[in-house]
């Protein structure tokens, strides 16, 4: 591991100023950072430990909730208020990683975790635009099974690995930060950027800008009764998604009054499909309707040879999640 200086941040402002200059990284749980530092993929010169900051609480916020960025996955997943108002978040959290990792990993860190693309994680691979800007993308003609079909570019097809972020995208979460220029609130859909020509940029945060809270707005609590996270992976537990879907609905009898659909495991950022949502709204829940929405969701997909299977897989995952969320009969599940 490359040497670094270790700074314990006394308060939020101290953390921001310690991380604003030079090549610095915040550390909370360290589950992603320490791994990547040991692999030689990340080599920050300064590590700013933010664990002493008072940002680990889950609070009631007028019908919504405010989750401190340092709250551990386990604590959020089993929090009564989260389970009651945003069960989709609890389900997505428990679908990710292992109990040990969930005891360590912070919510803020989850949002900014790096891709699991094997070329990114291997400094022995020369071509990775995300790791070494301008070096190329080994995945374009290489192993693609874990890679994205949505939001890709010729420079990067790395998948965003988070489960939590898929639920947060569906529920219109708001990310609160503190940076060198003060505090700001970022709509979840604006936090992550597409790779396009600059895969090394993954989010809109400035150097030294610290995620302090994730807010789930009261307006999204109305999805609590009909939401579902479905994750498909190579083994039953402790694996990253090949495809996942977070669906959240507001039902009036059997009619869908409002809908949210987000995808994981198939896109370069937590992926929201507004077009698919529009297919559902105003119609009675029905597997054929779900399949139509799923087709629309994957319309923009650009599959490569090694990951073409993800298009139908993601479609079926969406359909399955909608069937489960509405309690519909599963007989017409396949699109």
């Amino acid at each position, binding site marked *: 591991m490359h040497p670094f200086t*270790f700074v314990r941040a006394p308060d939020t402002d101290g953390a921001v100023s310690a991380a604003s200059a030079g090549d610095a990284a915040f550390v909370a749980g360290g*589950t992603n950072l320490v791994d990547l530092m040991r692999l030689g993929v990340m080599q920050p010169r300064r590590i700013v430990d933010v664990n002493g900051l008072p940002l680990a609480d889950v609070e009631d916020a007028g019908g919504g909730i405010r989750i401190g960025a340092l709250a551990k996955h*386990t604590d959020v997943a089993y929090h009564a208020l989260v389970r009651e108002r945003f069960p989709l978040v609890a389900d997505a959290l428990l679908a990710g990683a*292992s*109990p*040990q*990792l969930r*005891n360590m990993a912070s919510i803020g860190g989850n949002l900014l975790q790096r891709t699991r693309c094997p070329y990114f994680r291997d400094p022995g691979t020369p071509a990775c635009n995300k790791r070494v800007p301008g070096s190329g993308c080994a995945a374009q003609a290489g192993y693609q099974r874990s890679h994205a079909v949505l939001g890709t570019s010729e420079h990067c097809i790395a998948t965003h690995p988070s489960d939590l972020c898929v639920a947060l995208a569906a529920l219109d979460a708001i990310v609160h930060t503190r940076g060198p220029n003060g505090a700001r609130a970022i709509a979840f859909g604006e936090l992550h950027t597409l790779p396009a020509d600059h895969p090394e940029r993954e989010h809109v945060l400035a150097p030294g800008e610290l995620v302090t809270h994730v807010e789930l707005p009261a307006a999204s609590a109305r999805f609590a009764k009909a939401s579902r996270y479905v994750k498909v992976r190579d083994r*039953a537990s402790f694996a990253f998604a090949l495809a996942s879907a977070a669906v959240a609905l507001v039902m009036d009898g059997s009619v869908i009054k409002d809908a949210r659909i987000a995808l994981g495991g198939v896109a370069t950022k937590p992926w929201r499909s507004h077009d698919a949502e529009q297919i559902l709204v105003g119609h009675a829940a029905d597997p054929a309707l779900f399949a139509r929405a799923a087709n629309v969701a994957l319309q923009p997909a650009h599959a490569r040879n090694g990951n073409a299977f993800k298009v139908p897989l993601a479609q079926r995952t969406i359909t399955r999640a909608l069937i489960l969320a509405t309690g519909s009969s599963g007989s017409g599940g396949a699109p």
Partner: protein
Amino acid sequence: MPALLGYGSPRVLAFVRAWSIDHADRAELRAIRAELRGLGASLTIVSDGGTWSFRPDDDAERTTAAVYPDHLEVPRDRDALFVLDADDHVRFSYDAGGSLAGTLGEALAAAGAAIAAKPRPTMYTRREWTLTCLVAGFALAVFPGCKPRARSRARAKEAHVPPPPSMTTTELDVNLRVNGEPRALRLDARASLLDTLRERLGLTGTKKGCDMGQCGACTVLVGGRRVLSCLTLAALADGQDVTTIEGLARGDQLHPLQQAFVAHDALQCGYCTPGQIMSAAGLLAEGHATTDDDLREQMSGNLCRCGAYPNIVAAIRSVKGGA
């Protein structure tokens, strides 16, 4: 792997003026590795050309600095080798009279034999060694973040070339309570909790499997919760209670999970077992598992290459049922 200089119990320091890993022959490297395994030791070779850190199961790593007690009497014109225990007592010293290059394997073997024959330190009386930091080539640069004490000032004076900024590292004080016992440590900031437990504190029950958070062999409890010690910087566990597999039994009385793993034959090779048991201890404390499916799901962070899973589930179920 990070080079955790000053870690390991015991550790070997070899001062070999003309030595470089690029010119060492494979047979010598193999011999070094084999002897280190026998000793369970780490090795630091300090030469005119640089400093290399060896651990039995990792590749040698070139580093900037060696850390050693300032009372160590390092000859200036001859090669020498020292074996230090966890408290920095010199357990064995060897003055080569000339060059050690090419014969390091033999010197390590002699060290092993001498230590086996004399299990107590005999070369020096016990002293409280102060740690000081000197650089490769005996004194090229001061190791940053470390203040040389009086005895080493003369040598430190020669050390006026600062290390390149990219190699700046820090040491820091970390206080842990390990299996109930307070441990005040000064650690390289890079030290993982796993390496600290195994190599600094000699608690080798916690296993290193993948060292990247994918196997669970290194599971310990921190603050009563199961975590992966390989991905935990020791600095992040500062002030916390750490429980390892060594801390589970009460004297000769095995923990119920340990008894259950024996009774249910829940292991074959046993390498993952300490992690499985610590993870199960965490699981029972969490109280979120009801069914066998829950047990399997909530033990999914612990892999068993032998496939002892059915018996592992049975063992945990038996304790859960009895609790």
